């Protein structure tokens, strides 16, 4: 090898691909990305449904589909951060509910605008999220149990704040925020959600905290030895999850227009958010995934479920649809360990005594 090594193989800026093979490879690599797959499948479902019912493709409908799922999407973004650390947050439902309720009461009784109440929603979420963070990082409780406990505790808090009352009327600024759109096609909340998704994608990709989140999820012990303050990363992750759930509460309030003592938990929003996170490409074992995928997955779910309705499938099958989609998304992800018939039989038919 006569050439010096430094300019040989370190691909810093590859020359632009000009041949068909490189383009094909680029396409194949893009399609391997979950975000791209989601966009493609969403458009596909959309197209199929529109072919069946042309009324599906109105801008108003599109706007509604997006707006309707934004609370879930925002919560899912927060959930993604936690899942990246190899954790899980089951308590986002009452956090969303409490934020919706508290801000709702203030809006209903004192006429405060969404913008004025935004800090409150975020603070409520942050404080509750901090509770989770402390339990996971300092008390060492496994995330699934810790957030199971806080799910119950925060639901209780929500009930206490409700005190038997409900939020039923809101100033019109809420309805406008939650349901209006630009050009009858782009909902305000949709943009908020997108901004959050992009913002956190940036944080996760380009800041040290974000990279530390991935490091902790990949191998927490190695991260500790590399000098990362794992406890701090975990606490911040749960705080962010809570804060975003709080924001989701405000968005939910604006879109739905009401709130009560069981908002959030009654619709199991934490499970839908987790579903969106998983379908969006994040894995429960941590270290892999992203917020844009979760955002797109939330939209995909909304479109897919609406398509079911459009095809006259009873809405009671919606949860089943989500369940099936989770399984499909996970199966699509298992690139290793694809079972063969032989391995299945061996695993199951094994009997002591040596006969396979």
């Amino acid at each position, binding site marked *: 090898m006569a050439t010096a090594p430094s300019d040989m193989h370190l691909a810093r800026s590859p020359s632009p691909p000009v041949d068909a093979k490189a383009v094909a490879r680029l396409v194949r690599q893009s399609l391997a990305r979950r975000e791209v797959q989601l966009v493609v499948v969403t458009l596909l479902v959309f197209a199929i449904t529109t072919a069946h019912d042309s009324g599906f493709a109105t801008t108003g409908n599109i706007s509604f589909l997006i707006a309707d799922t934004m609370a879930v999407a925002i919560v899912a973004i927060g959930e993604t951060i936690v899942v990246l650390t*190899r954790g*899980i947050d089951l308590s986002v439902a009452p956090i969303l509910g409490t934020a919706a309720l508290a801000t709702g009461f203030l809006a209903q009784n004192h006429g405060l605008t969404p913008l004025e109440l935004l800090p409150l929603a975020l603070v409520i979420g942050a404080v509750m999220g901090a509770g989770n963070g402390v*339990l996971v990082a300092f*008390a*060492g*409780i*496994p995330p*699934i*149990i*810790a957030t*199971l*406990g*806080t*799910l*119950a*505790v925060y*639901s*209780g*808090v*929500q*009930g*206490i704040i409700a005190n038997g009352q409900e939020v039923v009327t809101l100033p019109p600024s809420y309805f406008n925020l939650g349901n209006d759109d630009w050009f009858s096609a782009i909902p305000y909340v949709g943009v908020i959600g997108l901004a959050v998704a992009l913002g956190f994608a940036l944080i996760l990709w380009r800041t040290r905290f974000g990279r530390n989140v991935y490091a902790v999820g990949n*191998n*927490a*012990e190695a991260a500790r030895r590399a000098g990362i303050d794992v406890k701090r990363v975990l606490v911040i992750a749960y705080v962010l999850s809570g804060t975003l759930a709080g924001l989701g509460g405000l968005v939910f309030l604006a879109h739905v227009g009401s709130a009560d*003592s*069981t908002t959030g*938990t009654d619709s*199991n929003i934490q*499970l839908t958010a*987790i*579903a969106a996170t*998983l379908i969006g490409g994040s*894995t*429960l*074992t941590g270290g892999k995934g992203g917020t844009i995928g979760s955002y797109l997955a939330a939209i995909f779910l909304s479109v897919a479920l609406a398509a079911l309705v459009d095809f006259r499938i*009873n809405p*009671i*099958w*919606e*949860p*089943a*649809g*989500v*369940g*099936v989609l*989770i*399984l499909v998304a*996970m*199966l699509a992800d*298992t690139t290793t*360990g694809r*079972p063969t018939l032989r391995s*299945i039989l061996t*695993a*199951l038919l*094994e009997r002591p005594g040596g006969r396979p």
Partner: protein
Amino acid sequence: MTAAAGLSRARHLSRDQWWMTALAVLLVAELAYFSVGVQGFWGGGTGMLDQSEYFLDIGVMALGVGFVIFAGDIDLSCGAMASFVGIVMAELWKHGIEIWIAALIAVAIAALIGLIQGLIVTVFRLESLLVTLASQFILGSLATAIGGGYPPYGFPHSFTSIAGTGGIGPVPIQIVSFAVLGWISFLLVHRTAFGRSLVLLGHNRDAARYAGVNVPWTRVRAFILSALFAGLAGVLIAGTYNSVRDDLGDALLLPAITIVVLGGVDIFGGRGHVAGVVFATFVLGFLYQGLLIANVSQLTANMVGGIVLVIALTLKISIEQRQGGAAFAERLRLRFARSGPS
């Protein structure tokens, strides 16, 4: 016996035994407090027996989930399964099948679904959290679809007289069935080859494989049992309340898992004892009942349950950390280094 001798005897208690003693103490304290402080709790002693009717069905479900948790998996669908079985049974009965046969068929279907869940988890190497989360959704929809908005109710006397108000003497059927199922669970986990395989693979799945344990089949059996017990719980619930609902899923799931974890069973698998689950059922059950009778709202009762769970676990983990030291940290490290299922 001198104090020192007593203490040294005490130090030989295993971790499980320590925890169960703590639970027993908590139970006694709690019963005393409620009996004295809350009107209507004591009821001459039989009052407490009757109270237990309301939470032992969840206890049965907790026993079922326990199998899966011993293996290091989890079953989020148990609550939805109980609902589903109740609805299937009711619908079959409405269509003319004798109620007890309907119950049998419904429970058998549950076991079949458990088998399918187990197969998906082991064959496709998916996380049990995902699969049972998905099946929780699916079962919920199925239950609503089959039962419609107005599920059948008002079961025949032949059913309610046994499954609802029946019993042996003053002891309600719920206690009898919980006792029987608890005993069976104990035998299964701690006195059979299956149970030994289950616990070993929960401790260390790789080592179990190297030792010749049939890991996939054992895990599948745990899922079948969990579904079976959830189905039985569903039948019990139908009897107790003389009605079925399609949406009990979450109301049941969270207390069930809380009971298992409170009972000292390690969420990562392996460690723990069925007796702990039994104790924790009573601890948590009477806690809820006592609070409810004291006119506390359901939400607040759940909240107290959550606080108890968090405090109990914080104590447990900090004690273990003190005892285990580096070995404990090493165990956590291995846990988190394990990259996914199987």
